[in-house]
């Protein structure tokens, strides 16, 4: 039983349609995003299902998860707040911003809030150097930029996420 194939038949078809029929392997990255929708990470089961859909080995799928930083094989917070602290952002205070944010949330970089809502991570350049400090928020089904941030705006945003929780 291939749960992924059963749940997202149309999405999978439209992804596969992008690539030549004999090059299905190209679809591994889009399908990993699809698999991540559910839990915010890719389960072993989903890896096998993707491998089956694309006719490649589960190891081929697993390797991709390991290589690319936006895929996860372990659960994290429901929202991953990813702060860029590369050189241009750091020159505009991103390191301090990240430090303050973590302090306020009572966690270390890479940590998750006790309610499982937010994981704060430190990432590499996000091509928003002119609007630092900034972060992106990765959830199971998307990724959005938040630019020109202060610890206050970031915390307000996190509060708003908390309110969305059931």
């Amino acid at each position, binding site marked *: 039983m291939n749960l992924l194939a059963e749940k997202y038949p149309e999405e999978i078809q439209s992804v596969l349609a992008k690539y030549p029929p004999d090059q299905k392997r190209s679809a591994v990255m889009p399908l990993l995003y699809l698999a991540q929708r559910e839990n915010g990470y890719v389960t072993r089961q989903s890896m096998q299902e993707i491998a089956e859909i694309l006719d490649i*080995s589960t*190891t081929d799928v*697993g390797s991709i998860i*390991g290589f690319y930083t936006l895929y996860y094989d372990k659960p994290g917070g429901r929202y991953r707040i990813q702060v860029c602290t590369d050189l241009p952002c750091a020159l505009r205070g991103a390191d301090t911003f990240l430090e303050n944010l973590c302090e306020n949330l009572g966690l270390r970089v890479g940590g998750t809030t006790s309610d499982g809502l937010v994981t704060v991570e430190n990432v590499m350049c996000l091509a928003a150097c002119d609007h630092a400090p900034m972060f992106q928020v990765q959830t199971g089904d998307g990724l959005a930029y938040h630019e020109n941030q202060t610890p206050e705006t970031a915390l307000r945003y996190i509060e708003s996420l908390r309110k969305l929780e059931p």
Partner: protein
Amino acid sequence: MVNLVTLTIDDEQVTVPEGTLIVDAAKKIGIDVPVFCYHPKMEPVGMCRMCLVEIGRPAIDRASGEVILNPDGSPKISFSPKLETACTTPVSEGMVVIGMSDKVKAGREDIVEFLLTSHPLDCPICDKGGECPLQNLTMGFGPGESRYIYDEKIRLAKNVPLGELIFLDRERCIQCARCVRFQDEIVDDPVIGFYQRGRSLEIATFSEPGFDSYYSGNTTDICPVGALTTAEFRFGARPWELNAAASICAQCPVGCNLTFNIRREAKSGGNWAIKRVMPRQHEAVNEIWICDKGRFAHHYTETQARITQPLVRKNGELTPVPWKEALLLVSGRFREAGNGLMTLASGRLSNEDLFNLSQLTNGLGGKNVLYSHMGGGDLVAQVGVAPGTNFADLGPESAIVVVASDLQEEAPIWWLRIKQAAERGAALVVLNPRPTRLDKFARHVVRYAYGSETAAVLAMINTLSVKRPDLPESVRALARSAELESAAKSVAGAENVIILFGSEGIGLEASSALAQACANLLVITDHVGRPNNGLIGVWQRANDQGAWDMGFAPVQDLSEVMSAARALYIVAADPAGDDPNLAETGDFLVVQELFLTDTAKLADVVLPALAYTEREGSFTSGERRIQRFYPALPARPECEADYAIAGEIGSLLGIEMEARIASIVMARLAASVPGYMDDTGAPLSYTKLSQVVEQWPIIGRDDLYYGGTTYENSQGLGVQLAPAAQRGEPLPLNWHAPSAVQVPEEGLLAVPITRLYDRGQTVMPSRLLHQRIPQPYVAMNPVDAGRLGILDGATIELSWGGSISFLTVRLDETVPASILLVPRSMGVPLYQPQVVEVRQVERQAA
């Protein structure tokens, strides 16, 4: 026509074919360019950067396109400012390569220093220590010291099982990707891969079971560090303590060349023990690879269960007796039996054994029977592949037909070499009733119904309009199919054709007919009597072909033939263990064996044989290459070689036989067995079989970094025998109409298939493979199962005639409708298709 290119490497000129890489060109003139990631059997990747050299090329004048000359008339050489990788750069005319300059020396020192920054330097406890490319190249090319702070070294897991056979030490890995590339490029099992990136890059497997491949052991040979080790050799011994003995794998008809590494050790009670099995290079047989069965299934030769002295039944009990007593008893009873002696022997035995057994039996006018359920060895002797055959030479001008064989399960190294031939452009035609892993590489896949294999081959002949044999109804539609027609045309149009026939789903009668049909196809398309043309039997045992050549052939009605014998001499076979209907003892039963098998337990006399690792001899492979194996372990004191026992008995009966010296047995054999001669027509001898020629790539000398730890072959490449067709004998055309087995309208047809890891006597004692050896099972289509209300994993009762077996069900969509696949050597005495009844006796445990 290959264009040749001349270049200069370290002041020495070399001429090599266009496209050769610098690293290989250098190797050919004995210049070592150090490498870690490069391997002569794989595509270059340029990852490790160890092979840096300076490369100069003749300077070309841009305007005229002419080579610019120095004042002395020599071409002006312009050197690239950067060092370049010798492993990725093909040679070009006039190129000048410098591998010995200070710049190159410094570059290589830099790379070694980098590699060692993350390496644990735990050589004293590393299994690779002593045969380690990193160790050797560090000595040869390293800087001699490191400026890296030891405390900053990366610490990683050192004991990571990639499955139960292969272990990974993450600290030692230098990310050369040889293992990953081998699994992907060479064997198409991409079940290990890189995980993470940068310095965190590590080898990982996501397969179930871990590192799920029949070829996994080879990665430990080509790993240039101690990162990958086998569960068997891990912390088992140091390489320099080991002795090496050349041998041949006894597990299948490929005849892979092996080396047994042995050591005398305290933990084996002061005895010699096999510490590991390594491949030995034979480019025309196994290249430098072996399968995991060959590597990990050898333990049967050393088990405690071995019989260690002759036994004679006294008062109903098998009782130890001196050899002389046993032999006198046996020879006396054999004399009484006279032409009522039947010798039943298997292809587990060497040519020398089988020859002496046949001499003995023939001397009394008795009957030689091969314990096998597959026919056609006589035809292979007639139209087998001719000397000089090498799968590696097959390319676009060739066709390979594989019929009725799940080749990866039956002969993994043939599968590998045929896959590679197909990748080089050979037309691969696969005829099989169900999909196999060879299909992916096939140009034509022809599906026939179980039982219609012979008809399918005849249909190909029919298509070619040369001869129109009558076809049964079951293949009429297939015979008109475009796929079959184009497959037939590929065969007819190819310069070279090799056909491999197996025993997928069939028994003796059908496989004999199939072999004949294949022979017919080869003969009418004129593909016999030449190198790279002919018929190959995918036998179930290593020396089945040798047994046929020595005059043994299987019989259809084994039970009856056995009953009729006045004395039975069963050697290296366990019919009673395989099939209760064959628990036939006759008046007098002698069993010559390694173990006290079910058959031996019934015997009047049991004679303890030496394992093939304890003596010398020869096997004839499916390609009819006769190859020597040598003693690896000392002979057990109370055991004897099979040929010697037969010889002793023969001598007591006054039959002129050699009982002591294997080479003399070979000389006698060569003098009397047709075709056992070398290419000059001289009878074969051990001396001839021991000859070697230099092979490419160069493997196993003091340059372990290049090809890995596979052993160099200095003990003999053997001799490929000329088939009768090449010796000018008449060709064996025969047009029996095939009798196709009908799949029943109702009920199920059970057919025997072969699995690599079975529950046979030479596999079960393996100390390593037990997790991969399945419990007895049967595979069936989910639709049939659904119809019968049978669940995946359920236990069923399988019955026909008087036979009843209890088996686990595996549902498998690739099994054709109304078919049950029953793996051989798993306790079910099914040797040919049988209509069976199935009843679920226990639902799957939840």
